Structure formats: C-alpha cells, structure tokens
C-alpha cells in the first residue's frame, strides 16, 4: 500500500489538521483579519466531503501497519463528530467575535475534531493513546480559553484529572501489552479469545484500569468529579463540544477497545466487564440524576444530566459485554439521537446566555413568550433527553434497555429496572426546566431572537429529534452497519 493510500484512509483527519494549521498561519500573518470562521467552516465542509467520499466508495482497510482502520464504524462517528464541530462553530460565532483569540479557538476545535476522528479509527493501543491525548490537550486549552477565573479553573481542573486518568489508562495498556505481547487490538482480541485462564485476573485488572481511564472521558461515575466544574466554567460553546463530541468519541473508543478487543459474550472475562459496566451505569445514573435535581444553573444541570446519560449508555455497554446482538447498534443509535437532542439544548443555551448573560434556570422563565421558536425547540430536545415519545430519545432508551434485556441475563433486568426508575427521576428536573420555560411569567418582556444561522441549527436539531423519533429506520440501519464492522 502506497503512502498516498495510507494517508487517503485518514484523509478527513489530515484535512482537519491541515485546516487548523492554515488557520493559525493566516492569523499569524494577518492578525485579526484572517477570515477564521469561513476557513474553519470550509475545513469542516472539506472533511465532511472527504468522509462522504469514503462512504460512497465503500473504503475499508487498515493503514500504518494496522494502527488505524477505516470501516463503517469509523465513518459513522466521523460524520457525527464533524457535524457536531460544524454546529459548535456556527453557534460560537458571537463568542468568537468577542474573544481576542478566535483563531486559536477555531484551530483547537479543528485539531480536537481531527484527533477524535482519528480516535474512532485507532486500532492499536498506541494510536488510541496518541489520538486520545491530542484530543485532550486541545480540549484543556479550549476549556481555559475564556480567560476569566472560572474558565482558567475549569481548564486546570480538566488538565489535572486528565493527566491522572491518562496515567491510569497507560498503566492498563502496559498490562495488556505485557499479557498479549502486542498493542494491536486484533492481537489482543486473539489473546482474549484463546482463553488463558492463568492470566484471567491480570486481564481483568488491565481492563479495569482501561475502563477507569476511559471513564474520565465518558464522564461516568466515579470518574465524573471534574464534569460539573468544567462544564460550568468553560465557555458554553466549549462545554457543548465537550458534552457532545468528546463524549461520543469516548464511547466510540470504548466500543472499539472493549467490543473489538474482547468480542461480545463468551470470552473468559465477558461476565466481568459486563458487571463492571453495569455497576458504572447504575452509579452514574443514580448519582447524576439525584445531583441534577438540586441544580439551579442550567450548565451544571446539564453536566449532571450528562453523567446520568453516560450511565444510560453504559447500560448498553453492559449489554454488549453480555453478548446482546443488538447492544452495539443500540449504543450507536443512542449516541446519534443524544447528539441531536443535546446539541439542540446547548445551542439554545448558548443563544440565551449571549442575550441575557445568565445561565440561571429562573432566567428561563417564560422563554416561550420571549422567543417562541427557540423555546419550543429547547423543550422538544429536553423531552427527547427525558425519553418521552414521539421524540428520538424515547426510542434510543427503549433500544438500549431492550438490548440489555435481550442479552438474557437476569441481573441485567434489574439494571434496567434501575435505569427506568432513573428515567422517572430525570423527568422531574427536565420537566421542571421545561415548565419554567412554558409556564412561568417572564421576568422581562423583551423578546430574544437568535441569529439566523443559529435558528437554522436549532431547526435541524429539532428535525432530527422528531424525524428519528418517527422514522428511525435510516439511523438504525446506519448504526447496525457500523456496529457490524466491529465484529
């Protein structure tokens, strides 16, 4: 395979990194006069086009001695991540205009996106780690880019916890390498499938460490401590990127490492990692939802709710581990719909905080009358996060929970009981927010209008939430083909 062919397989990543470089260079030559927004969007469009090209030509294969792989699984996430980055780019226009380092902001966003796409393609522990750290470093800076005390605190907290988790992850990787004698995921899969009983405990330890390191990225309990402060302190566009893109990429790599590396059910440790994720899921959901009830700041509320939602996805991971055939596609379907709904909520929150300069829930009172379109979409996306029909969130939860029951393990039924009761708890705070928007008297009568592109984004998110709630077939079949690529 020629060098060109190898780079072709990671083409979208190259485009994103290249775009970031070009953006910074232009800004260096002509400070503050570079068309940074246009350049960022152009880069994302090019990367999207490249991904589309891969999808249409059915590209598949490995490159760089098996370090990266191009398959439908990677394509699924490439589309998702680039779309999220584009949405955040547009939604952050006003934030970037006020900021004196807009170029750095967009460049870092592109770097982080590129690294995430690479992460979903990584097929080797080394490339996983490199992509993960590139993502993380870009995001540390992004979290601290606001330059106020809170943003700096957020950046520092994120950096410190990130460093610890990277160390833990690396330790797990080292153990895996020591056991399997290779860093390639297929090699590790072969080792696990061979069923070396004598090293079972070491293998479990290795995977617990890996799960802990990645748990930080997924924002599952008990590795969630950074989430509320970082989500609240970071500039809202950055928060939305962390909550949507970073989380999706984290689950992608977890699926790749655990599912491709360990196979579904039937290996010597599949019960152990199923139990591991079941506990993580139960704790994340219960803790996240309980804490979210108490929040009055919407960004903190979203932070805790995102911990709870990560718990929902972890239910899917536990099902995957237990050998549920529809488990993997359930996780992908959930991530797809969660992205649309969560993005819709965050874009609305960005638009509101740009206008009224507050993230307090009481300032959302009567938003429906101040900004009917934006408020309706925000409420719709909140309903989707709760899981109320006919939104896509309803089907997503149903898909994951059904996947867990279909795994055929009695104790997963109890996990689903915990999960559905948590849904009831989450309904309480999501609906309370929705109620504030719809029912309460507005504090001020002035109307709030979002910029036209932002309204377009919101409409797209709402359309996605409704469309996939009523006609889920296209997304389900995409998720299934992506999941099948892992087997």
């Amino acid at each position, binding site marked *: 395979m020629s060098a060109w062919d190898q780079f072709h397989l990671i083409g979208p990543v190259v485009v994103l990194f290249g775009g970031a470089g070009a953006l910074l260079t232009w800004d260096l030559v002509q400070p503050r006069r570079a068309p940074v927004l246009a350049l960022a969007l152009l880069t994302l469009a090019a990367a999207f086009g490249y991904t589309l090209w891969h999808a249409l030509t059915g590209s598949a294969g490995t490159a760089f001695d098996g370090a990266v792989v191009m398959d439908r699984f990677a394509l699924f996430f490439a589309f998702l991540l680039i779309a999220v980055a584009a949405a955040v780019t547009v939604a952050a226009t006003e934030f970037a205009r006020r900021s004196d380092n807009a170029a750095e902001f967009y460049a870092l966003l592109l770097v982080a996106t590129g690294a995430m796409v690479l992460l979903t393609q990584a097929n080797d522990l080394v490339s996983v780690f490199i992509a993960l750290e590139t993502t993380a470093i870009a995001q540390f800076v992004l979290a601290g880019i606001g330059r106020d005390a809170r943003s700096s605190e957020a950046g520092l907290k994120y950096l410190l916890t990130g460093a610890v988790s990277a160390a833990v992850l690396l330790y797990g990787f080292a153990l895996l390498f020591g056991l399997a004698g290779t860093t390639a995921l297929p090699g590790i899969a072969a080792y696990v499938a061979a069923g070396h009983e004598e090293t079972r405990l070491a293998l479990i330890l290795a995977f617990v460490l890996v799960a802990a390191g990645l748990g930080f990225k997924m924002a599952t309990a008990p590795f969630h401590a950074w989430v509320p402060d970082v989500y609240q302190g970071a500039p809202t566009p950055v928060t939305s990127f962390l909550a949507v893109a970073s989380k999706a990429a984290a689950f992608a790599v977890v699926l790749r490492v655990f599912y491709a590396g360990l196979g579904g059910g039937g290996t010597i440790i599949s019960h152990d990692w199923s139990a591991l994720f079941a506990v993580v899921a139960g704790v994340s959901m219960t803790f996240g939802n309980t804490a979210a009830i108490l929040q009055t700041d919407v960004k903190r509320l979203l932070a805790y709710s995102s911990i709870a939602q990560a718990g929902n996805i972890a239910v899917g991971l536990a099902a995957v581990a237990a050998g549920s055939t*529809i488990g993997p596609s359930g996780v992908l379907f959930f991530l797809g719909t969660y992205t649309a709904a969560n993005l819709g909520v965050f874009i609305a929150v960005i638009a509101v905080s740009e206008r009224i300069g507050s993230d307090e829930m009481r300032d959302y009172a009567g938003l429906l009358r101040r900004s009917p379109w934006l408020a309706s979409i925000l409420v719709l996306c909140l309903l989707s996060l709760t899981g*109320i*029909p006919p939104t896509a969130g309803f*089907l997503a939860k149903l898909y994951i*929970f059904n996947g867990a029951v279909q795994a055929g393990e009695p104790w997963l039924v109890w996990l689903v009981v915990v999960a*559905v009761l948590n849904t009831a708890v989450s309904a309480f705070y999501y609906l309370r927010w929705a109620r504030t928007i719809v*029912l309460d008297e507005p504090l001020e009568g002035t109307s709030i209008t979002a910029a036209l592109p932002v309204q377009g984004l919101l409409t797209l998110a709402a359309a996605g939430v409704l469309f996939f709630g009523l006609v889920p077939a296209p997304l389900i079949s995409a998720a*299934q083909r992506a999941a*099948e690529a892992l087997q």
Partner: protein
Amino acid sequence: MLTLFLLLPATGAALLAITRRADEARAKWIALIFSSLAFALSVLIFVRFDPDIAGYQFVDRFTWINTHQSGFTVQYALGVDGLSAPMVLLTGLLSLASVLVSWRVELRPREYYAWLLLLESAVGGVFMSLDLIQFFLFWELELLPMYLLISIWGTGRKEYSAMKFVLFTIVGSAFMLVGFLVLGLAGGSFDIAVLTAQPPQQALVPLSLVFWAVMAAFLVKLPVVPFHTWLPDAHTDAPTAVSVLLAGVLLKMGGYGILRIALPILPGEARDFRVLLAAIAAVSVVYGAILTLQQRDLKRLIAYSSVSHMGYVLLGVATMGAVGLSGAALQMFTHGTITGLLFITVGLIYDRTHTRQLPELSGLLHRLPVLGTVTIVAGLAALGLPGLSGFVAEITVFLGALDAHPAATITSVFGVVLAAGYILWALQRVFTGPPAARWAQLTDATAWWERTVMAGMVLAIVAVGVYPALLTTAVESGVAPIAAIVGAG
C-alpha cells in the same frame, strides 16, 4: 380506518399549531370539526364492528422498527375487538364532549385545543395497539398533553397536581416497560396476539414479578388504593374537560391494559393472585366510598367516587370468568359516560356559582332545572339505579364475582350502599332545600353546546341502561377469548 381515527385529531392539533395567533377565535371550531369527525368515525367503527368474527378487525399493520439481528422488531399494528371497540367509541364521544364543554376557554385557546386533540390521539392509540411497544409509546404519549392541560389551564395547586400525576404514571409505566421487554424476550415477539396465543411459560425473572411489574402501571392508572392519591388532586385542579377525559377514558386505560395484556399474556400468574386482586378491589371500593363520604368539594367527591367505582372493574377482573370480565368491561364504559357527565355538570355549575363547596350550595334545582335534572340522572346512574347503565354493569360484576370471591363481593356491595349515601346526600344538599338568595341570579344551561353535550351523554346512559345488548354483544365477544385463556386453569 383506525389509523384515520388517530390521524384526525392529530391533524387538527397540527392545524391549530400553525394557526396564526390572530385567528384564535377559530381554534374551537377547528377542534370541534376534527373531534366531531373522529367521533363519527368511532361510531362507524363501532357499528361496522362484527362481534361474530373472532380476532381483531380493521387491522392496519406494518413493521415500524426492524433490526438485522433478531430482538428488536416493533410493529405499527392497530386493530379492534369487542373489548376495544366500545373504548374507541367512548374516546370519540368524550373527546367531543370535552371540546364542547371547553367552549368558553379564553386562555391560549389554540394550544389548549391542540393538546386536547393530541390527548385523544394518544388515548385512542392505547386502545387500538396490538403491539406492546406501540402500546407503551401511546401510553407515554398521553403524559405531556395531560401535564400541560392541568398545569396551564387548571386551578388551585395545579402545578403540584400535574407533576404528581406525571410522576405516579411514569414510575408505574417504568415497571411496565421492563415487564414488556422481558415478555418480548420470553415470547420472541412484542405482538400482543402472538403472546396471547402462546403465553410465555418462563422468563429471565420469575413470571410473578413480570406480572406485578406490568400491573404496577395499570393499578396506578385505574387507580386502586393505595396508589390513588394522585387522582383527587389531578381531578380537583384540572379544567372540566380534562377531568372528563381523565375519569372517562384515561382511567380506563388501566382496566383495559389488565384485560388486554396482563390477563391473557400472564394467565397463570393472574390466577395465582386473583384472591389478592379481589381483596385490593374490595378495599378500593369500600375505602374509596368512605373517603367520598367525607368530601365537601363536589369535584373531589366525584373523584373519590371514581376510586370506588373502578374497584368494581378490578373485582370483575379478579373473577377471571366470562361474566365478571364482561362486567368489568361494561363498568369501564358506563363509568366513563356517567362520571364524564357528572364532571360536565359540576363544571357547568361551577362556571355559574364559582364554588364547589357543598355547604355553600343549596336549592339549585329551582334556578337550574335542566342542569339539576341532568345531574340527578347522572347521579342516580352512578349509584346503580335500574334502567340506567350503571346498574347493568354493576349487577354483571356482582353476578360474576359472587361465586369466585363471595367475601370480597359482599364487602363490595356495601360500596353500593355507601354510594347511595354519598350521592343522594350530595344531590340533596346541592339541589333541594331552600333556594339561597345568593344564587338567585343563576341562569340555566341554555347555550347550544351545553345542551348538546348533556343530551348526548344522557342518551348514552339511558340507551345502555334500557337496551344493554347494544354494548354487551360486543363486549362479550371481546372477553370470551380472554376468559377462555385465563379461566382454563
């Protein structure tokens, strides 16, 4: 045809959503047109329904969700049998009635009618679903309209009541969902007909747990003591039309779910627990009636009487025999019309007097002859006067239950005595006695919409009371297969 019944109100709601705010006066006419069409269609469905044909009729079916691997196939499947056809008719009738009694709603009418119509679609969907997941979807779909209707257009502690309603329902249905998923795995399908034909013999968790998980949602919805506390709050604070729908059709979702899903799919467990169910029923009947006796608010009084009356439904269910099950199904229909009418008249009286406190009301029959007479008719029907529909249903339940559960039946008969007590007492307080000067200015129900809705409801009550076969032929054909399954052991 059944899809059309769901689409009509939904289309009306969509049309209302895009109506300009300036045209709000038109909102009620749009709602009236679409709910009338839906009612006409429900009548057509009921009339065209042939009780001699076994199985579901007018079936609309396609695969909605399918995965390459097995395990997650959800159908869009609608159909009616003798059990659901009356429920669909009831939904059509009461939805139209609720639009009519809302004729004077001034606050955000566009949204109000849109949610009301959406509620009709959701409830209709519950009664026609032939797939467990689809059933659950419609079951949950009803939450949001109810929440908003109570919390925006209600009175009193409306937001508290609305949230209480939502949380009770959602916790109950959470268990139901897990039960459905386990059943789906055990039976290899979510299709109700498939599961009914071959009830699962074993599942991941003991079937008795599955039974109670599924029943949790239904018992909360019905509601039975001790899960009834959401009902009086929701009723008292809801606007009239919503009370009508809540008592008239939403509670029936619980009874319908038991008959359609819990009994035929888990017959063994249902039989095992029938004594417990009968005991719960008897407690609900008597305790509900005792609570009713203590109420001073007219609307709360009717709300508590619903708890008592829905206890008869559960008692009929607990017999697991054809007669008792027919009685339960009849009771659902008749309670829907009777209590619906009571809420309508109480709402209309409240519109005039602005109080529902029994001690303040007196001698209203002099001022409100029409309203008063209609309320008295409905009240007498509620206490089971022969010739009116309540009698038919209750006597059928008792006939069916006497052999199966003598103790519970005899206890429940006291509920009838108490019902006579609280209804006659309330009617006497409100309508007879010296006409208070304070109410001298009241005007009777004269508006066309008031008279139409009352006439229609009285007609339904009297027709079933005088000629029960109108309903019983259909109902018996619907419960016969269920009784055959559940009574076999």
